[in-house]
């Protein structure tokens, strides 16, 4: 970022010696940004001369200039600004942000800084202000709506809960291989996996490890999307790369910054429940019944039971608390020309809306930059994090909320003796949440050191070594049965063979990854118009993972969590080593500063493939053509650039995909050892898979960059994908590693940045991101019978919904059970009724009993796809003097989700639409003989009052809940992601004060949601972050709407 500024300063200072002057004034001034923060290193010139200087760490400058002159101020990232001196000697100058800065320097692969102009691929970056506008503690969430082509979802609203990020859709057919991009922080590869180690961790919303980064420490995030952008990262960057650059100290005065945020939050969306029918079965009231809502009406129930409340409780709404969060961060930075530093500490405490859930995070960072000599420069960074908290089992909570009858007060969950208060055979979810707990505690260090040696102007050598190491300690606890009077056994609080007798499980995960990068750069100008840069280097990634788990069940002392107190013990260990070395080269050729060609090549050697296949090479080529610099453009066009690229990227297998052997058989009690086949069938012959990507882009700026348009089209095909495919158990294995299948992703990304209003003290910036991705599975290996079932989630009456991969379809098509449609005998003979297509244009088939007919379970029908048709974000910033207002909209359209919660709500008579349960109706459809159905039926349970016909368990239990189609819902949404209003105290108030700048803001997140989806917020998923399985949004941790107040003070 600093390169052009430094050059201009150098030029300026050289020229200032020859300065001539008539009536010179000594001018002092301060340069600040829109937030009132000082701008460091801005260049200030006297217009029309070479006379100039630059601002210091406090934004201050002094300069001699003619009294009638004009000052021209430039700073990277800000619009150029002119000020008439008019005899003034003290100036306060505010620069406006300028995202359209044309020749910005961006951080590309492996930390290489290149001018944006020369890039032949699209790169999008987010600066600190945009990133932190809505104060999200998880940096992945902080990117939501701000990046074209990135699908980012919270898996739920729990404190610290994992968030998913996918760039340009799903890249692998293999559901078990994350399609998450690589995260790189200050050149160090950073783990962003979501560990689901430990019992129920899978459904407890564990964090993606990017939560360990304090978003306030981040200066910029660059998103490298396609193959060309990530080619130098090699196979680890095959899903895109998120390049994070943290803040660094600036030479000059010391600076202290404090940021404090407090907030409250509530569940943003509940499913709609009926409030007419009370507890019981077949209309018969029983206040201890298992059935929560198949009883009589509330009015009838009150007559039978005087203790019945006058109206039903609302268990869903009452079971969630209001959450809150407190966050403080403090940074201290400064330094000299030779050495600068930034150190920061931060703390977060977040209490969730689901009882007994929280998340804490403590972080510390030290970044330094040093210049030992003209030839030797370097830097270091180290960040330490301690994070974790109590994770709730939201999945089980939602299920138990369904079972809980709204006739009872869910808040009255504990007896005086401390055991569960409940009714009948039902468990109180709040009691279970308080007693069945899971906690993680992560201690992590990410540190790195880099050194650049430049023996001559045309050559430099850079070496960087980094480490990312953490230990993740987890504990699952549940108190056991005590045998007190009135005590109920809590089934969840036990293990197999010792129901409700408590447990204490301990899990430990040790992770260590080393990144070593060496790059040699050579520059040469062949002629004035033609120059070249060559980079060669080597890159090592070395990772060790070691996990242990000890699970102790059946506690003798019911509440003493000690492994010595457990009667049943299970222990397991897991070790994994992974190594990858890449050799790479990159040649940049530039002609006349408007035509740029880059070719790269990389050879990877991986430890996960066998000797013959482990070394593989792949190339890329990109072209950037700034045609606006070659030709005179019409007045309206400020800038125009065309980008073209081709890239190939190889990819290796997951560790031990080629191995064989015997695994421990873990179902035996302590004292017995057995071995069994491992679940994975390894294939020693696995080859690397390759993805070929073609990309074309066009970048245009109009009207002095008031309008900027960026279009990017890509087409990528992955071949020989390495998949761990589920196989028939008759092979003796669960999954097999194979090279199978190819998949295509093509799509368009559009960003439109406009400045509709730009006045002296008012401006409006509007940035729109729009993208769509079309995915197609081109083929899967023939012997897989053209279908891979990736995942499924239970539904009553075999309405289980599965996500399947089939050639010709997009990844992630949801299949389920439907009602039968009418087909003629001829069509049935042709087998048209047993295809996978669900033809809704046909009439419903009605059985002779007058009800629709459920399809055979062998004929699952296609009901929707989980991938959105398009996604968009619209970010608006309004600035008026010290006030700034930021409004962010976020949309995702055309995606489907299975709502398991809805399936259960139908099955238990709790959904609002089940109030018609005692109606008569005639289903619209035809009988098997093709004639129109005219038979009137009753939807209720038992015998109908009119004709005394026995309808058994009723329509909702016999038919409705078995039709997956009702629960695979359009989960499109538009949301007001955030609104933040900030006010910076005017600089004039703070002149010579201890406080240099101050800003207060109020932020609202997730303020409005427009969706047809009937469950909780459809952005969430029941699978952990990092999973490619996103089709299931039923029993999730509900999303929250939060209101935050934030204070930022600089000293």
């Amino acid at each position, binding site marked *: 970022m600093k390169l052009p500024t430094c050059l201009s300063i150098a030029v300026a200072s050289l020229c200032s010696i020859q300065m001539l002057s008539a009536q010179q004034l000594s001018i002092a001034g301060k340069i600040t940004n829109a937030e009132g923060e000082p701008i460091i290193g801005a260049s200030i010139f006297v217009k029309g001369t070479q006379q100039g200087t630059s601002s210091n760490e406090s934004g201050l400058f002094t300069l001699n200039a003619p009294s009638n002159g004009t000052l021209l101020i430039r700073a990277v990232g800000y619009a150029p600004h002119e000020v008439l001196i008019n005899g003034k000697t003290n100036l306060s100058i505010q620069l406006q942000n300028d995202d359209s800065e044309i020749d910005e320097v961006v951080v590309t692969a492996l930390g290489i800084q290149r001018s944006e102009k020369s890039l032949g691929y699209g790169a999008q970056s987010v600066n600190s202000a945009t990133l932190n506008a809505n104060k999200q503690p998880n940096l992945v969430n902080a990117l939501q709506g701000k990046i074209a082509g990135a699908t980012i979802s919270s898996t739920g609203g729990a404190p610290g809960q994992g968030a998913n990020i996918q760039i340009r859709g799903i890249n692998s057919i293999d559901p078990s291989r994350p399609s998450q991009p690589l995260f790189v922080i200050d050149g160090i590869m950073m783990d962003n996996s979501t560990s689901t180690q430990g019992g129920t961790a899978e459904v407890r919303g564990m964090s993606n490890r990017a939560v360990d980064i304090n978003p306030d420490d981040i200066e910029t995030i660059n998103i490298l999307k396609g193959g060309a952008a990530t080619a130098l990262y090699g196979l680890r960057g095959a899903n895109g790369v998120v390049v994070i650059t943290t803040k660094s100290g600036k030479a000059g005065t010391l600076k202290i910054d404090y940021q404090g945020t407090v907030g409250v939050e509530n569940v943003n969306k509940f499913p709609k429940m009926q409030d007419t029918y009370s507890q019981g079965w077949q209309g018969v009231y029983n206040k201890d019944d298992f059935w929560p809502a198949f009883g009589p009406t509330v009015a009838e129930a009150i007559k039978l039971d005087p203790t019945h409340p006058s109206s039903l409780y609302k268990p869903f709404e009452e079971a969630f608390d209001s959450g809150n969060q407190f966050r403080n961060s403090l940074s201290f930075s400064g330094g000299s020309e030779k050495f600068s530093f930034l150190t920061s500490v931060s703390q977060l405490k977040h209490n969730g809306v689901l009882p007994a859930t929280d998340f804490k995070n403590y972080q510390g960072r030290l970044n330094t930059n040093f210049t030992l000599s003209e030839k030797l420069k370097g830097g270091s960074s180290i960040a330490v994090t301690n994070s974790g908290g109590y994770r709730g089992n939201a999945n089980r909570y939602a299920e138990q909320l369904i079972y809980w009858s709204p006739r009872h007060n869910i808040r009255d969950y504990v007896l005086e003796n401390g055991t569960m208060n409940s009714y009948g055979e039902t468990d109180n979810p709040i009691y279970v949440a308080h007693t069945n707990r899971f906690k993680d505690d992560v201690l992590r260090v990410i540190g790195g050191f880099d050194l650049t040696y430049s023996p001559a102007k045309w050559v430099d050598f850079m070496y960087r070594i980094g480490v990312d190491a953490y230990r993740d300690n987890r504990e699952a606890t549940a108190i056991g049965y005590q045998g007190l009077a009135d005590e109920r056994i809590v089934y969840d609080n036990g293990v197999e063979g010792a129901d409700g007798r408590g447990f204490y499980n301990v899990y430990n995960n040790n992770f260590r990854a080393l990144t070593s990068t060496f790059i040699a750069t050579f520059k040469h100008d062949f002629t004035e118009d033609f120059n070249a840069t060559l980079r060669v280097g080597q890159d090592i990634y070395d990772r060790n993972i070691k996990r242990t788990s000890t699970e102790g069940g059946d506690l003798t002392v019911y509440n003493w969590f000690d492994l010595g107190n457990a009667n049943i013990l299970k222990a397991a260990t897991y070790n994994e080593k992974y190594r990858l070395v890449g050799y790479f080269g990159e040649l940049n050729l530039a002609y006349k500063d408007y035509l740029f060609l880059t070719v790269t090549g990389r050879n990877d050697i991986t430890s996960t493939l066998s000797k013959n296949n482990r070394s593989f090479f792949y190339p890329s080529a990109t072209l950037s053509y700034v045609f606006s610099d070659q030709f005179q453009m019409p007045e309206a066009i400020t800038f125009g650039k065309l980008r073209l690229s081709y890239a190939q990227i190889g990819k290796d297998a997951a560790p031990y995909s080629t191995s064989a052997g015997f695994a421990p*058989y873990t179902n035996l009690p302590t004292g017995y050892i057995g071995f069994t086949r491992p679940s994975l069938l390894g294939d020693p012959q696995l080859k690397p898979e390759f993805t070929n990507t073609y990309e074309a882009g066009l970048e245009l700026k109009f009207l002095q960059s008031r309008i900027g348009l960026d279009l990017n089209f890509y087409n990528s095909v992955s071949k020989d994908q390495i998949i761990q495919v589920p196989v028939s158990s008759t092979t003796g294995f669960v999954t097999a590693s194979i090279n199978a299948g190819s998949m295509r992703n093509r799509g368009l990304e559009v960003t439109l940045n406009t400045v509709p209003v730009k006045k002296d003290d008012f401006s409006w910036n509007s940035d729109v991101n729009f993208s769509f991705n079309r995915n197609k599975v081109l083929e899967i290996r023939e012997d897989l019978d053209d279908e891979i079932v990736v995942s499924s989630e239970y539904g009553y009456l075999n309405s289980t919904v599965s996500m399947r991969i089939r050639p010709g379809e997009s990844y992630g098509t949801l299949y389920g059970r439907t009602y039968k449609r009418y087909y003629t005998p001829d069509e049935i003979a042709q087998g048209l009724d047993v295809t996978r297509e669900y033809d809704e244009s046909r009439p419903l088939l009605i059985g002779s009993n007058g009800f629709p007919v459920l399809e055979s379970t062998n004929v699952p029908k296609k009901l929707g796809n989980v991938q959105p048709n398009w996604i968009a974000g619209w970010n608006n910033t309004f600035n008026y003097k010290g006030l700034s207002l930021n409004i962010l909209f976020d949309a995702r359209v055309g995606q489907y989700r299975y709502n398991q919660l809805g399936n259960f709500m139908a099955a238990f008579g709790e959904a609002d639409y089940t109030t018609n349960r005692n109606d008569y109706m005639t289903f619209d459809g035809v009988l098997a003989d093709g004639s129109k159905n005219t038979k009137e039926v009753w939807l209720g349970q038992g015998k109908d009052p009119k004709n005394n016909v026995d309808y058994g368990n009723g329509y909702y239990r016999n038919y409705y809940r078995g039709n997956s189609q009702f629960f695979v819902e359009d989960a499109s949404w538009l949301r007001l992601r955030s609104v933040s209003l900030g006010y910076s105290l005017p600089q004039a108030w703070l002149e010579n004060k201890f406080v240099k700048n101050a800003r207060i803001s109020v932020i609202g997140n997730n303020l409005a949601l427009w969706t047809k989806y009937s469950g909780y917020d459809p952005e969430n998923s029941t699978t952990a972050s990092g999973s490619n399985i996103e089709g299931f949004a039923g029993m999730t941790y509900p999303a929250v709407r939060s209101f935050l107040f934030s204070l930022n003070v600089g000293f």
Partner: protein
Amino acid sequence: MKKFIKIGKISLLALTLFSMNSCKDYFDLTDNPNLVQTPPLNALLTTSTHKAAFNNYRIAYFNNQYSQYFASPSPGSDTDTYQITNNSTTWNNLFYALADLYDYMVKSEEAAAYHHLAVAQALTAYELALVADTWGSVPYSKAFGKEATLNVPYDSEEDVYKAQVDLLNKALENFKRTDGSQTLSEKDDLLNGGKIDKWIKFTNGLKARVLNKISKKSSYNAKQVIAAAQASLESNAEDVGMVTFDGVNPWASISRSNLQNNLDGWLGSNFINQLNGETYGIVDPRVSKITEKTVHGVYVGTVSGQGNVGAANTVRDECYISFNSPVTSDASPLTILTYAEVKFIEAEAAFRDNNKALAYTAFLAGVKASMDKLTVPAADAAKYITAISVGQANLTLLDIFREKYVVTYTNAEAWNDVRRFDYKYKDFKLPLGAVLGGKFIRRVAYPSEEITENGSNVPAEVPLSTELWWDKP
């Protein structure tokens, strides 16, 4: 140009410098440290014996519903009413066990450990029977990686049957060998405590079962069945079961969960009515040792397909699996084969062989053994035995199957007998709402996971009332 040569030199030097650690071994990490390459045979013995017992339980868990020992508390239960159900997990468990047994066979043969080989063969025969008797045609000769394919072809039912007989005969030969390299460890053998004579008796019992299974075929050889049965278990003490649990016996666990309102393990009315005297007019004293009286002080079963009747389903006004029963208590073994069952096999074969004297002796011995096993007081047992002592001339197949029905409670084998006997127990009713057009169920539909993952080989769907190969002449 010189400059570029220099560049080249420098970069080569640099690369060499940084590639120092990338010597060959650095990447040799394909051996999975979490897997062991040569497990001890006794550890494979542990796995195999544990899985065999649990797989009997897993199959029995649903096929005891077809035999109507159990009935679901929910009306119209899929299993009760013969609808297509998805038994993927059970299918998978069986095939993983068979794959382990195949590896066990290969490893023990390599090591010339013939007793281990014999165990592997006997248990392969047993678990192959469990799958074949449930689903019919199944993959075997090309399964478990015997052939390198992910889509494993199926063997015909007859071939799978022949394979069982063949495996059992081979096992018996191998048990007799004394030149083996390794012995069975007492502790690691969870079924027979490392005792070869017990294994031989057990294998003969399995053989008797298999040979008796084709009672409808013309190739049925009653004398061979009798010979195998007589070489099998000789007392209740020799019953073959497994008692190594985490926690408690899974049937006891069901019983306990049911009492904590996790409803399961409800006993069927056909079974209870036989025991409480309603069907045959004689109260079977074993009833009090199998289950407990309801809150109303009587024994009541649940009608298959009807679900809970009477008071709310948490009111204990019907009978369930009981953790107080000697066969389903916390510490009861998961039994694969009992002496009593062997006696009934002998009785049936002798009956079919027209050797009524032998049939009658074995029949009475079987009932007596069952009474003892269930710790029925001697007087009560004697009273019942007297009541059913019809004399050898009057002995019928119904007598044998009726008494054997009580013995095979919670055993997967029961459904084979029920089908061989064509459900012809007295007053044995179709489940309420059964969907097979008035017919009893004869097979189970292939699980959906297998259809998805190996669809091209899975045999075409037939009505579940279609008899298996051995179930028809």
